[in-house]
Structures are given as C-alpha cells and as structure tokens.
C-alpha cells in the first residue's frame, strides 16, 4: 500500500503530506507533475501550495499537468483522491469536484486554527469519523471561500457531498467561526461518488500534538484514507 503525493513546481505542503502519512505508519512518496503514471499509488493527495505560482487563477494551470490526466482517470475508476487547499482548487478547476474557491472575504491570507464539524461520513476519507465530530485543524490560504450555485449546493446537500463545515468551539455554525466567507460555512466537499474529497483546512498539519496548533485531529482523515487505500 502506498500513498502518492503529487508534486507541482510551487507545491509547498507536498513534503508535509508525505511526512504526515509516514508518521501514521503508511508509505508515501512524491509523484512528479510531468509524469504520466501514478506508479501504483493506492490513494492520491493533491497537496497545498501555489502550483506554478498560481498567478492566473489558483489551480488553473495545474489541471493541465500531464499527471492530472492520470489522477482524473484514477478518480473515475473509484480511486481515493484528496485535494488539500491548493489541491482542492486544482480538483475544482479539473472538474473533479463541484464549485470553486475564490478570494477570502476580508481579502487577507489567514493562517489560523479552525473547528470543523463532520457533516457526512459517507466518503472513505471520513470513514473513521462520526457525523457531528469536531476536528481542530489549521487553515492557511488567501483564496478559500467556497462558492457554488444554489442548485448545485442543494444537490450536494441532498447527496451528502458536503463533508465538513466551519463551526465554533461548541460545534455550532456561527458567522465568526467562518474564516473566509465560504458559502454555507463549507470547508470540504466530495464528488457525487464520494471518492474525491476537497478541503481547504490542512489535515496533514494536525497530526502532532507537540507542534503547530497542537492538535492531532487531522489523523482521523489521513488514517481513514490509509484504511481505504489498504482495501
């Protein structure tokens, strides 16, 4: 079993993702953006960063990387894919996830801990979580405000595709708990089949209680991915 982490020029949290999975006892390795195969990876991470500099629209160029054709094919066949932060943006641009991510309300980059509530655990990425669980995980982005048209949002809601929402410490939705102005406080969504998850918060930066924001809640997500990949 092996987790593949895509590396674009400008990826920043690629090594962090490899490190976090290895910390959980899984095997993980980088896959170069120019490669044409996924080298037998059992799950794919599209990591955070600024792929190709993201001077156009975040993720707009990365979707055309040779490796992304393989990622799309892997996803179509039901493979487990997670896009984190910039990876979420790339997956939206690639049409693997609905909606889009735009500039934060307030226009500032923010690096802060947030509380997420698990809204649906039908995707394999959240199989080890219960609906209603609260996860403390950091965000760090300037363009993380999730938007989608009302029809799409209603369909996603009905389908259980809204996986994670920003909430306050008590688990309640509140305007001040939403760090970027995301529609309906959405922090993470899946595709219709549930095998592709995109999320703005960084679970790979919440696997170590002694560092960073001192939370290991991200291990629930990464651990679920490992479990799905083993199967």
């Amino acid at each position, binding site marked *: 079993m092996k987790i593949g982490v895509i590396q674009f*020029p*400008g990826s920043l949290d690629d090594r962090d993702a490899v*490190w976090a999975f290895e910390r959980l006892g899984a095997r993980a390795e980088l896959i170069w953006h120019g490669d044409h195969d996924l080298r037998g990876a059992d799950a794919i991470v599209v990591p955070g*960063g*600024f792929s190709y500099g*993201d001077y156009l629209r975040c993720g707009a160029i990365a979707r055309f990387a040779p490796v992304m054709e393989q990622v799309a094919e892997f996803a179509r066949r039901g493979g487990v894919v997670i896009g984190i932060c910039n990876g979420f943006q790339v997956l939206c641009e690639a049409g693997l996830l609905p909606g889009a991510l735009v500039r934060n309300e307030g226009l500032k980059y923010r*690096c802060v801990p947030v509380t997420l509530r698990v809204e649906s655990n039908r995707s394999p990425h959240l199989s080890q979580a219960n609906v209603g669980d609260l996860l403390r995980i*950091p965000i*760090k982005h300037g363009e993380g405000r999730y938007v989608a048209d009302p029809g799409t949002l209603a369909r996603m809601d009905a389908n259980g595709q809204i996986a994670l929402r920003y909430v306050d410490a008590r688990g309640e939705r509140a305007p001040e708990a939403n760090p970027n102005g995301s529609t309906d406080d959405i922090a993470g969504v899946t595709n219709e089949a549930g095998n592709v998850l995109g999320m703005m918060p960084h679970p790979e930066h919440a696997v170590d209680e002694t*560092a960073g924001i001192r939370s290991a809640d991200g291990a629930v997500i990464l651990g679920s991915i490992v479990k799905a990949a083993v199967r």
Partner: protein
Amino acid sequence: MTVTLIERASALGLTKDELDTIVKTLGRDPSPAELAMYAAMWSEHCSYKSSKVHLKTLPTTGPKIVMGPGENAGVVDIGDGLVAVFKLESHNHPSAVEPVQGAATGVGGIVRDILATGARPVALLDPLRFGDPSEWRQRHLLGGVVAGIGQYGNSIGIPTVGGEIKFDPCYAGNPLVNVMCIGIMRKDLIARARAQGEGNVAILYGAKTGRDGIGGVSVLASRPFDAEAEAKRPSVQVGDPFSEKVAIEATLELLEQGLIVGVQDLGGAGFCCATSETASRGGVGMEVDLDAVLLREPDMEPFEILTSESQERMFAIVKPEDVERVLAVCERWGVDAMIVGRVTGGDRLVVTHRGEVVADVPARSLADDGPTYHRPMERPDWIDALRANDPSSLPVPKDLGEALLTVLGAPNVCDKSWAWEQYDFLVQHNTLQGPGGDGAVVRVEGTGKALVVATDGNGRYGQLDPRLGGRHAVAESARNVACTGARLLAITNCLNFGNPERADVMWQFAEAVAGMGEACLALETPVTGGNVSFYNETDGTSIHPTPIVGMLGILEDAGIHVGIGFNSAGDAIVVLGETFDELGGSEYAWAVHRHIGGVPPALDLRRETALCDLLATLAERRLISSAHDCSEGGLAVTIAESCIAGDIGARVTIESGLAPHVLWFSESASRAVVSCPPDRLDEVRAAAAAAGVPFAHIGTVGGVTLACGEFDLPVTGLRAAWNRTLPDLLA
C-alpha cells in the same frame, strides 16, 4: 579626467577621492560600465566602508562557529553532522518607497543568502519598526509590509515563526523592515561562494534580468531620504516568489548531486557583485559575456545588466563536464539557466558585450579593495538634556490597574496576531513555538533537537545610551531564547542607523557596536555576520539607533521547551532577578506619559549570563511550567501576558521598598517570571541560589483575575485591552 566624468561619478554616489582611486587602479579613466560597477560595489551598502573598522572589533569566533562574517551567512555547528545557517538583513528603504514589494523582496533576498550556503531555509522572522500607527500613512506601511512578507514567504514554503513589531515616531519617515532566515544542512555539504579552477564554467540561473532595482544599493540604500523619495520607486525590485521557490529546489538538487564548485545569490549590485566577489574570494579571474544573459528587455545597456537587482537569480561555478547535468536539473524545475562565462587565471574580471570589452578590472578592487573610512565621531550635546529628563518627575498614576491596561494595549506591547495570522507558520511541520512566544522553537528534523530564535532591539534605549542599547539588544534576545529552555549559540545582527557622514550618528554606531561586542563576549555568543543599514534618516532627522540582534540557541531535547503561559492552578509564581527604580526609556513612560528620557536600565552582564544559564537548567531539570522574559512594560506586562497566554489568573504580592508603579513597570534587566509546581519550589530556589540569581516567590497561579494589592483585573479584560489595538486600528 574630464568634468563630465566627475559629474557622472558624483551622480552615481562616488566621491572625487573615490574616483581618483579608481583611475589610479585602472591606470586610465573608467568606462561607463566600470564606473557603474565601482559605484555599486563601493556603495556603503556593499562595501561597509564606514562600518568595517568598527565591525572588526566584534568577537566572531568560537568552538561552534563554522563560518563567520564575510561569507553569505553565518554557520554554526549543531551536532549530529548538521549545521544551522542564519543571517539578518534590512530592506528598509525599498519598503519605505514601496512597502509590499520592498518587504517581499527583502524576504527573497535573505532566503537566497541562506540558500547559497547550500542549506534548506527552514524559518523566517521579521523585526519591523514603524511610526505612530494612529497615522494613516503608518498603517498603510504596516499593512503593505505585512502583506508583502506574507505574499512572498507564504508562497515559497518557509514558515514565518517570529519577529517583533514596534512603533515610535522616529520611524515615521523611515520604517525598518529587517528579515532573518535560518537554514539547516549537513556540515559536509556547505557550499562556498567562491570561484575556483581555471576553465570552470560560470552559469547564471533563475529569473531573467530586467531594469528593476538599478541603483538599489547606491541610489536607494546608501543615501538619506528626502521629499523626492517617492521618485525612487523604479529602484525597488519586484518579486516573483514562484521563481524563488523553483530556484530553491533546483539549487538544493544541484548541491545534493555535487554539481557545484561555488555558488552565490544575486542581491545588491546584482551580476557585478556575484562575479567580482566569487572571483575575488577564489583568487581567480573571470570572463563574462553579457550577450549570454537572458534579458527582459533586449536593449539594456551593459551597466544596466551588470547592476540590475532583478530578483530570484543565482550564480554558480561548475566544472565543464558537469554543465549538461546542471542545465538538465534547471530545466526539470523550469528554471532558465545560461552559461555566461568562465574562470580564468590572473585576477581580472573581463566583461564583454556585443563583441567589445566593456569592463576590464581587477576583481579584488571591486569586491575587497573598496574604500575604508574612519569617519569623524562626536558625542552629541543633546543627549545630556535627554538623559537629565528623568521619569521620576512624572506624575504617579492614580489607578495602577488602569495604567496596566493602557500599557498592555499600547502598540508596542499589544497582541500582534493581526500580522502573524497573515503568515504561514506551519509549513515544513516543525514549528514547536510560532509567533507570540519569547523565542520561536523549530524542530531539527531527524534529531531530537530544536533551534530557538529571537530578535530584539530597543531603539529608545539606543537613543538614550547607544552603548547600553547595543548591550540590551544582545541581552534581551538572549533572555528570550533562554526562557524557552535553550542554550545560547551565536548571534547575527542588523544595525539600523542614520547618516554615517554625521559625527553624532557615527558615534552612536561605534558605541552600539562596542556594547554589542561586550555583551557577546560575556554571553559567549559570537557574531557570525549581519548587515549594516545606514542613511535611515528623513529630511535630516535620524531614526533612533536601532541595532537588532537575532539570537540563535539550541534545545538538545526539543521536548523540554517551556512556553510563556501560566498553565496550572496552584503553581507557584517566582521572579528571578532584581527590580530597581529604572523607568528611563520605559514603555510605561512612553505609553502613559509620552515621555522619553533618563537613562536606560543598567545591565550587569554577569547577572544576565547567570539568569540565562539558570533558565536553561530549570527547563532541562523539568522544574518549571512556564517562563517569560521581563522587558517592555516590566513585571506588570510579563505577568499579565503569562495570564493571557494560559487563560488563567494569578494572585501576587511583592514585597519591595519601591513605589508600586515603579515596582510594576520598571524595566530592570536580567529578570524573568517563571511558574512551577509547588512541590518543585524548593528545588527552583536552590537552583537560583546556586546560580547566584535573586529569587522571590511572589504568588500563585489560579482564578480568573490577576490580583495584587493595587488591582484585581479579570483576565478577559486584560485580553481585551491587549488584543483589540491592532484590529481596531487596521479595521
């Protein structure tokens, strides 16, 4: 020598004497390209011509120092076959003119310095100084600088883990933007910034060369500011963090594969500096062809190509047989690379352009044989009146609690999360303590160790007594690092001063350097390098002398690091060190009375050394729950911050002959407030006694208020006073 030549030289910032030296060196008049090269390399910024006689007096060696001043950055042995590489630099003038790009390229520049040693950059810190934030222009500068640091640092995957932000009207026309970077690498892979081996090939890689930043070191960095400062905006470079990120990865891969003989970044004075310095250090000559340099604009003049400060460029010397592999690595990362020259025998730097030699000069004359000045120095008269204006005549505050809330909310003391939250402090996953602690703690991956870093420098102390200000900058940064439990290693510095052509400024500089040297000797923290930023004056008014020190320390066991917050009800609170009547230059005097005067707190370097040792010992023996350095705002602010950080109250009674406001706000040096479990109190007392550090058990952690004889304030109220200032100002 023609009149036009003298005028041209003067326009580039060269004096008549300096021009005479150039003519003597060359045996003829310099060409336009040569004149521009000398003007850039002999600028104050590049040549340290006014400062080097003083910097030579600093202690620079020690058992752990691998590389000191003169290379791209300082290198310190941290065991396990690893070294830490670190340096602090200024980007003050560019940031004053264009805050976003000025600050962004400041980050880019220092990162390339670290990279050029072969180290992966692992952390950034940003000591910043602005004028009064109630003024619109200062908020504009602060917002722009923080955004610029964020945009650049966040895009290259290096965490910003600390720094400080301070305000004083003296910085209104001339903000300070200093940036520190730390890298880690294997000791056996250290790269040298030198050209060697006749016939070896010179490669320029990274971004293309454009017309940005021409005259950056001479026009911008080496002259005072005036009403025309805005017109200098074309001398500010524009950053492209993506180019930096791929240049970092390509450089590390080249070094890992052993493909590089020497490497240097292109910073101030650009291509001219990289070629002449590498050749001079290697004792060789070099031929370079400007036609091979990839340009953004094809019609650039030779002098523009030579002195352009376009960002994100690196210069490497490689063996002929490795050239193809080097180009392949660059291509893989999408980095432009071109062969621009070769190493020759002799000592000449020969530059050709369109088939003609446009410069032919001894490399050493540019890089190392620049002028050295013993500038006149004189202690200014005004300092006596300032020192005589003692804060003892200030009215005593009626309500001490109210005074505490005022000081807590003062821009210098208040919560800086508004800025920190715009920086990625998490990437690379090794940040054990990010911004907001006494020292930033960064794990050394693959070992059980952590590096600890802090930056400090109090301009008010410098204004009242530059020598003492220099000592305090070292002592306070040391105390901050020691509070985490770390042992001290070495310092880097950035010396921000006014116009060195003024005798009073030069005196301040010499005094501050002497003070730093004394403190570094006492604390056994050698100076590994740094940067001097002169000409920080606007319309004839200088900033306060502001030497900023970046202190590096090490925790042999990362797990023992201590935070600033009280964390367990029932813990005993202890003050280590002694409090005297020392309100001169204090934050209390400024925040409550708008007063700067008197003399700064005395500093006994033996006491400071003993305190730093004790703090590390207490952490190593796991005796304490928290430790927080006592500095601006005195005991009152230190204890309040420990309550806020831990979200818990404290009951405190201090026996003292001092007036209450003096006791609470005095900034006496060599003090820290620690908390420990009650059953450890005797051991802490014994350790303090053994170290010769005064010890006072002053209270207990617990409850929801900070209470002493004079006030009883809820922690929520302390927090509200502390964390609303910047968001309210910048809303």
